[in-house]
């Protein structure tokens, strides 16, 4: 399955370059229309145009990214016993689980001593300045994918099934490939489908394999 995808992608890429060159010629003939710039860069992998891009996919144990504040899930979840939904309250309501607003952090941290705690000083600085904390994205799906946290949470999936043992992580890190085959593995056989849909589970499984379930 994986090899097939790769071959198809490679073919698509080659076709794309061919069309791209043809279109570049076409763009010349349309040059009297300067208002409508026509680009081919979007088709090609962005890495070819931007050295600052980071290859993130393919290695499930991708290197943990340095974050603006060294936040630790382990401390908040395991030590303090907080529920995932306390901060990621949107996970059961919307497509995005959401990173909490700074005000949510400050709900507790306004009362917590920052002496000799440089990471908490950083948080307080962001809050005092009213600045947005620029977290690095750890789980990033391609923009053409529709993924709803709500659907998966309500269906009864545990956060850990995709995100790993986050409660043990001091630095958050992606453990799943987030590739299409990985998604489909569950969409084909996850036990929650039978639990939720009973006699209609077979139909639901068929629906879950529809490309338009996720591709948008």
């Amino acid at each position, binding site marked *: 399955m994986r090899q097939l995808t790769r*071959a*198809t*992608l*490679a*073919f*698509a*890429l*080659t076709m*794309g370059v061919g*069309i791209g060159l043809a*279109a570049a010629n*076409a*763009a010349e003939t*349309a040059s009297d*229309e300067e208002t*409508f710039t*026509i680009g*081919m*860069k*979007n*088709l090609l992998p*962005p890495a070819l145009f931007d050295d600052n*891009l980071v*290859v*993130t996919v*393919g290695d499930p144990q991708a290197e943990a990214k340095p974050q603006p504040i060294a936040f630790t899930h382990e401390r908040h979840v395991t030590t303090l016993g907080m529920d995932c939904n306390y901060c990621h309250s*949107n996970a059961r309501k*919307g*497509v*995005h689980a*959401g*990173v909490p*607003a*700074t*005000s949510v952090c400050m709900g507790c941290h306004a009362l917590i001593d920052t002496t000799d705690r440089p990471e908490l000083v950083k948080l307080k600085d962001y*809050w005092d300045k009213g600045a*947005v*904390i*620029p*977290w*690095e*994205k750890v789980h*990033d799906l*391609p923009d*053409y994918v*529709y993924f*709803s946290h*709500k*659907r998966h949470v*309500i269906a009864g999936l545990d956060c850990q099934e995709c995100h790993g043992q986050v409660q043990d992580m001091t630095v958050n890190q992606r453990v799943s490939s987030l*590739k299409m085959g990985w998604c489909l593995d569950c969409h084909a056989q996850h036990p929650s489908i039978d639990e939720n849909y009973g006699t*209609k589970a077979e*139909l*639901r499984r*068929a629906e879950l394999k*529809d*490309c*338009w379930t996720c*591709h*948008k």
Partner: protein
Amino acid sequence: MAEFNRRDFLKAGAVATTATAAACSYDYVVPQEKVLPYVVNPENVQPGLASYYASLCNGCATACGLVARNKDGRVVGVEGNPDHPSGPGLCTRGHFDLVATYGPDRVAGPSDGNAALSWDDANKRVADAITAATAAGKSVAWLGRYRSGSVAALLDVASARGIRRVNWEPLGVDALLAAARMSYQVDELPVYELAGAKTIVSFGYDFLHTAFGSMGMAKGWAKAKDPSHDGFVTRLVAIEPRLGQSSSQADHWLSAVPGTEQAVAAALARLCAEANGYAGPTLTLVNEADVPKIAAASGIAETKLREVAAWLTSGPSVVLPGGPSTAGAQAAHLAEATFLCNEVLGNVGRTVQFGRGSRPGHVSSYADVKSLLDDATAGKIGVLFLDGVDIVHLAPAGLDAAAALAQCDLVVQLANEPDDSSGAKTLLLPTGSGLEQWSDANTETGLHVLGQPAMVPLKDSRAVGDVLLGLVKALPAPPAAVPTDPAAPVVIDVATLAGAATTFADFLKARWLALVKPAEAEPTAWWRDVQAKGVFVHKVAPTSPVWTGGPVSELPAGPPAGDVALVLFAGHLAEGRWANVPWAQELPDPISTYFWTTWAELSPATAARLGLDEKDLVKITTDQGSIEVGWFGSPAVRDDVVAVIVGNGKKTGKYAKGRGANPYRLLSAEAGWYGSLPLSGARASITRVVGNSGVHALVGSMHQDGRSVAVNVNVDDAVNNLVGAAGSIVPIHHLPTDPRVEAAGPVDMYPEPQHPTYRFAMTIDANACNGCGACQIACAVENNTPFVGPDQLRKGRTMSWIRMDRFFEGKGENPDIRYLPVMCQHCAHAPCEGVCPVLATYHNLDGLNAMIYNRCVGTRYCANNCPYTARRFNYHSWEWPESYHLMLNPDLSTREMGVMEKCTFCVQRIRSAKDLHRDVAFAEREAGKPVNMRQNEVPDAELRKLTACAAACPTDAIVFGNWNDDKSSVVKKGTTPRAYTLFGELNTKSAVHYVARVNHNQPANVGHHGGGHGEDHGGAKPDADKGTHGADAHGAAHEEG
């Protein structure tokens, strides 16, 4: 090689042919992105979930209600507000206004042309200029578009404090209002209730498109056309020199000699009086009309006029006034003559209602504009406010508006982007979009529409009302009593309210609480309720005013010298307001299907007389000037008329600049009777100019050549259900087939697809469709469809997922112009699916013909195999200015070069609707109820208007739903006797069902012939105008295929 399927073939092909692939052996690459959470989460905002705000459409003066969809902080879609009397549906202009909100030319903040200013500095400059002007004895003047509601109330106060105020629009209602004053001594426009009219006679009124209140009339017209509504189908008679979008729906076309329409209306009044034995007080006046003389002068046979009179007197009817094409010097008298017809027919108080106070606020005439500009030229105007009127573009040839503006000390332009009127003395104050600022409207007595902001302003703008409030406060209050709102049920002191308010939003709310709120209502709860609904209605009963008008039957003194009569008409760009909206420029004109320029419509006979080649231009010359434009051969234009579209010919704007020519420059500056601007009737000469005009028809066929694409049904058959059983309009084969093949019956190549839950389908009632284009622009906004510009359009590379087919099937007096919106038909046996080598397109369990963009490799086999030309190929990665990125719908991808795309039935909306209903099922199960998780289907009420096109359609012509649900609207409408599928003989089993049009000229019982070959479903088949010009001569328009 037992099984070498096509995917293995591709694998092998990829390996064999792509040496470069080895170098690209990564899986995929994504940029490292950041997650930027809120600092403080705003109330009720959840990332990724839409919020909806009831608001007011600022696309024209009609002031329909809309609902704005805000996603992640910006409005990405608008729909009609079902709580508003104009109902669901939203026309093109509402969508253009959304696009204009994101226009790249919008200024960042106040500016004087050289430098950006702060609002404080700008306000100070305005106040200083007013002080200086007053000291120098010069006037302060306001020239703006129609305004009602709170802005108009502030203008009333400003006017009482000495501001000279002119509210004018070139396609406005000043002539109509003058006629109402003359005829009935009322200061309002009649409301035309078309739904009950068996016969409608229109003298060019653009009642389905640009006319004031067109949304309500379009709905009424669709009802009147529906045989199942009241058991009749209305008969539309158009009396005008050129059939426009509204009159293209006509069953009969009587083209009077330009300038004689008013006399024709008077003659009709007399004939109607004779036919129905009218003996009212206006009988003497009615009998002044000399019918034989008028018939001779107008070129319409008296027998024909008598026939129309017989139709008019046979049941409830409406006579509509004139529009741009009949807006000659006598426009006000034409309207008066139509009122007289309605008086004689007894329509006043029934289908023509006075007393509802219908008017778009204060209305000035063109004569007021002229006198204002004349005074400005004479140096009498110190400060001139320009509110949304690009007067330099709109002024006729003899009126040098640019010079007049240059003589003012300061021109304060209230606009979001510079236009042709921006000059050296202009101070540009951005007033924001209606989606960003508070606004309200009151276009009928008792009908109050609230426009609340639906997003944070993108630029440093303030509402028009805020600027006005500052102006009112800067002016000295007069000692006399301040004006009050004459239409108000309670008298309120607007000036005191204005004095107490610090912002326009405060003033607006205070005015609503004082003026609109019922006395018994609790203010806080009432205001919250009004904000949720967006509209508040007090019921007002119609009155029956008494006729006071004078003679209306004069004929013009005879045709003056000159070749042809000039007729101006408006298309999607209106008077020019949307010229800088690229999606508006790209939306093909309903009649010619031209785009992005100015053109002239000529009759094929005129074109033949001039010896025009399709690429030629025509030079149109009046005594005021001349323009050179491309041409379209329309069978719906008189031989002695040249019709020119307005809107283009601007000098400013990223998308407006340098496109086409400005036809206002052909007009004389002289005002017509009662001060209106004669848009039509000037004498012109036309000559051939050899060249390359670049005009191009997007729909490449004038006729359907006997194929059953847009089918017509006879009225009696439709009303009496004589069409036959459901499905009896089986489209006939247009190609001869072997009798043995026919004898075998339909044979399926493909297995029948399964649709266990949904079979999503659409029914399009061609009888209700008037080709307005709202579905097309709504689709583009919803689905991130790019504009491609004129060069690419000429290559047939349109990206619009809906094509509006247009056929001229009639001839002469029986025009029979048919529209048909065609999108992907979501066939069960789709020809496109079988030929895709990479399974990028396939049929899913919901009956959708799915299209997966990042699987597509761009072979275009699918488009070649689609019999409906419904697929669009991205020849380029279409780029647009950064500002439009904010408008993109985040629920679906943008597509790039090398990828095929097409209508998806708005799969993202389907996904969202299903998602919400699945939530309900899970919640019920959690609450302990026994829930079958498969019985959570989305109900018909929600599916009915789910797609963007269906939601936008003003006439409810498009209905969406589940074909598996027998009770759904889509099944009910799609299984009537008049329903058919496009190219049904191909056995594609498509999901889009069309309902045949009903026409009064259609021969009876055409639906019964079964399976003949080569027969024509249509009415009279025109030949004479074929091949002379028009789209036929332009050849194939679509490159795809």
